[in-house]
């Protein structure tokens, strides 16, 4: 039995999908679901993560004919997922309303000085990141939370490395300003 028979390659599954085999695509999507989920989870609200992942996988199926095989499928899918996340951030930016309660403010201040849990840290970062625009938020998330290099971010977003660096710097400055404001006595 060959490896192809046990575990078909991405190319094989893509060819089968394009020939009308929907189950082949579901199998292919299953392979990269976890990776996409990790990325989406950093940008989407917890209740919308699974829906966004489904939307991305569906969009990728609809656009599969555009996949030329010049880059690995995983990379192509990641770029598409990132683009969807970017659209999500931009949409959210338009409807954003800063509503922080005084008691939440106190809690956030404690977290900022000594994050007790990863969840609390993420909550505070999410709040602080609301002050960033979609591009800055995307860059700082990929750089600091997903630990991608500048080069990788440039390849994923299609922006130049210099551009990524500038956005990361601006994002950090804004986040620091927010933390300083949080540390001020109220």
């Amino acid at each position, binding site marked *: 039995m060959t490896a192809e028979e046990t575990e078909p390659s991405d190319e094989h599954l893509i060819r089968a999908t394009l020939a009308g085999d*929907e*189950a082949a*695509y*579901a*199998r292919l*999507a*299953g392979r990269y*679901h*976890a990776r996409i*989920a*990790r990325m989406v*989870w950093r940008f989407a609200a917890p209740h919308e*993560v*699974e829906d966004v*992942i*489904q939307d991305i*996988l*569906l969009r990728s*199926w*609809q656009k599969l004919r555009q996949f030329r095989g010049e880059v690995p499928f995983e990379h192509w899918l990641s770029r598409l997922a990132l683009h969807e996340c970017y659209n999500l951030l931009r949409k959210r930016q338009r409807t954003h309303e800063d509503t922080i309660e005084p008691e939440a403010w106190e809690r956030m201040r404690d*977290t*900022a*000085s*000594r*994050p007790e*849990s*990863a*969840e*609390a*840290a*993420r909550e*505070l*970062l999410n709040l602080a990141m609301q002050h960033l625009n979609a591009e800055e938020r995307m860059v700082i998330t990929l750089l*600091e*939370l997903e*630990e991608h290099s500048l080069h990788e971010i440039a390849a994923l977003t299609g922006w130049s490395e210099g551009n990524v660096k500038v956005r990361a710097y601006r994002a*950090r400055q804004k*986040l*620091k300003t927010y*933390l*300083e404001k949080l*540390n001020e006595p109220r």
Partner: protein
Amino acid sequence: MNPDDQLNGLFRAARQEVYESRTLGLETRLLARMREERRKRESVGWLAWRVAPFFAVVTLGVGVWAFFTPQPSPADQLAAVELDAPALVYLALR
């Protein structure tokens, strides 16, 4: 505390959290949505195919009607201009 250190501490803490993805039933849910999408796409195509003959007949009818409608004679056009009646000019020249 220095905001730089504070920010790095927050990033470090947030990195520890990992997402537990729900892969159970993923393929089934995805397949269901793909089929729904395909049905939607097909139903639009089906509707377009069904109404196409109707619009073809209407277009043909308008063409035939335009071909057989008598054109105003030059005398009609001249009379309309001489009477200085814009409505008549318009009707005669139409």
